[in-house]
């Protein structure tokens, strides 16, 4: 299929640019920013998966991002072995999602109620960690640090060389690599039978149940996977910034939702693109803002206006818009029908085959 090959080519091109060209150019600020964007990009992927494909609207998905980050920092400070800490952190993020998901899905909580519960969990963690400044708040040898977070978090080391932390360039390549691997993993997941059942549950949960699929189990599986994925993002964030309660706050959760909507709900690449574009924009606006003279606007205000524009004018987000544009051109060249149908981003019939 023409379009899926084009999509794959675009992703491959982006990967070559991010993983080969950028490191070769060696621009340090680009790479440091890029690491942060990639960590957030993985978080965006996590929400894109559960919301766009599973229909699970989690307003507090950053909770697992933060939990992954904190678990990594605490485990790394205590164990010394950063890779073991990474595994523990991802497992813990996934397990937290599993526990929370169990109560929500078996309690048949859905839609906006589910969103509010996850957000509440995230904000409780935010409030809790914010007040852990005192000396009594240490786990083993890791001080939780209150609103300052844990700046002393050990950086991942070269595998097998516990005394050699990765350089910022290496962290960048690792974070970007993880983003692309995460993207491919999600892409594969939605193309499996499991993924198709998940989409069918989003389409019509009762029908899926009447065909013999236990929706609770499938949602739990998806939510757990996404929680672990967000945890990976959090670990990377801990390595390129450092963990702090802000990972759990309303702004992080709100931005995340904006990235997904602006990029295109129902796609995987769209939300990652939305995340990168909006973070770049925020960085740019932040620089302009600090440069003085133009501080009559607030970067958040700009983001809000953009979101409104996208929702009102584009409806489905940037990537679906681009695909529809491509289809319009293709249709004019006489390739009608098939492509036009596959353009609907809510039709998550995986197009890989």
């Amino acid at each position: 299929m023409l379009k899926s090959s084009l999509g794959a080519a675009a992703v491959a091109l982006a990967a070559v640019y991010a993983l080969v060209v950028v490191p070769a150019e060696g621009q340090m600020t680009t790479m440091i920013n890029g690491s942060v964007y990639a960590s957030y990009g993985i978080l965006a992927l996590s929400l894109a998966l559960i919301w766009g494909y599973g229909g699970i609207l989690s307003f507090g998905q950053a909770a697992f991002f933060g939990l992954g980050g904190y678990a990594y920092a605490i485990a790394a400070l205590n164990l010394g072995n950063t890779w073991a800490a990474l595994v523990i952190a991802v497992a813990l993020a996934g397990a937290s999602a599993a526990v929370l998901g169990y109560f929500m899905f078996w309690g048949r909580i859905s839609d906006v109620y589910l969103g509010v519960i996850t957000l509440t969990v995230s904000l409780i963690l935010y409030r809790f960690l914010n007040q852990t400044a005192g000396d009594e708040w240490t786990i083993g040898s890791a001080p939780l640090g209150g609103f300052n977070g844990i700046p002393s978090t050990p950086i991942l080391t070269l595998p097998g060389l516990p005394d050699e932390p990765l350089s910022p360039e290496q962290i960048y390549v690792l974070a970007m690599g993880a983003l692309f691997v995460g993207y491919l993993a999600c892409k594969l997941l939605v193309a499996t039978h499991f993924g198709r059942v998940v989409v069918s549950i989003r389409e019509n949960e009762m029908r899926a149940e009447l065909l013999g699929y236990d929706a609770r189990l499938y949602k739990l599986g998806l939510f757990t996977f996404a929680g672990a994925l967000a945890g990976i993002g959090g670990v990377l964030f801990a390595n390129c910034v450092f963990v702090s309660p802000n990972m759990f706050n309303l702004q992080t959760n709100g931005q995340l939702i904006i990235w997904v909507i602006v990029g295109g709900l129902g796609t995987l690449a769209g939300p990652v693109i939305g995340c990168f574009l909006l973070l770049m924009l925020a960085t740019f606006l932040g620089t302009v803002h600090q440069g003085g003279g133009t501080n009559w606007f607030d970067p958040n205000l700009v983001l809000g206006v953009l979101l409104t524009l996208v929702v009102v004018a584009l409806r489905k987000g940037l990537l679906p818009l681009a695909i529809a544009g491509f289809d319009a051109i293709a249709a004019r060249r006489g390739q009608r029908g098939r492509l036009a149908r596959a353009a609907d981003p809510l039709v998550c019939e995986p197009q890989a085959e």
Partner: protein
Amino acid sequence: MTEALILEARGLTMRFGGVTAVDGVDLKVRPGELRCLIGPNGAGKSTFFKMLSGQLRPSAGDVVFKGISLVGLPASRIARLGIGIKTQVPSVFNGLTVAAGVTLAARRSLPPMLARARTDETLARIGIGRLRDRLVGELAHGQRQLVELAMVLAPQPDLVLLDEPAAGMTADEVSRLADLVVELTRSSAVIIVEHDMQFIRRIARDVTVFNCGRVLAEGPAGQVLADQRVKDVYLGKEAA
């Protein structure tokens, strides 16, 4: 005689607040039987089906299917035991293609290759092979009914519940459906709710009449349809 039954409902009751939609219904169905369920609107037929398929938990009474009590089991478990239901309002996957939805249904119990073959076979049997790549949401009401039917039949359930399957179908589709239902009884028991008397007369063997949540009459079609009480209930309501 219990061994010869595939389904037995005993005193099955569903109350919604003050309304008793189904009130102590007993029903016995043998394997391979074709049973028509008729009755005026609001008689409790759909509610009865929802209890059999696990969409509603009965307020009282019991349902035993292949020797297993279904009360309290989740709908997905009941489906895996071998009950398939076509609901009154078509319940389909509007965002998927016809083939994708039917394959999903077949795939629950079959490996991928066999599921695909089963899909083709089922679509051909129902006569909607030409719709296979269409989006379900784009189809006419009657066609969506057929798609739902294909999804229900693809896993080859032992008991098929059909709630007003002919609604919205063309005369052609209805007559095809009648043949299909009769053919279906070679491998499954079928309970069908239908309002169309032509349809009932064409396929019916045994008829159960619901009225106000209770069984009003039961027996061979000719006899039941000639029953004065049934005529009163039916014509009275239909005329009103």
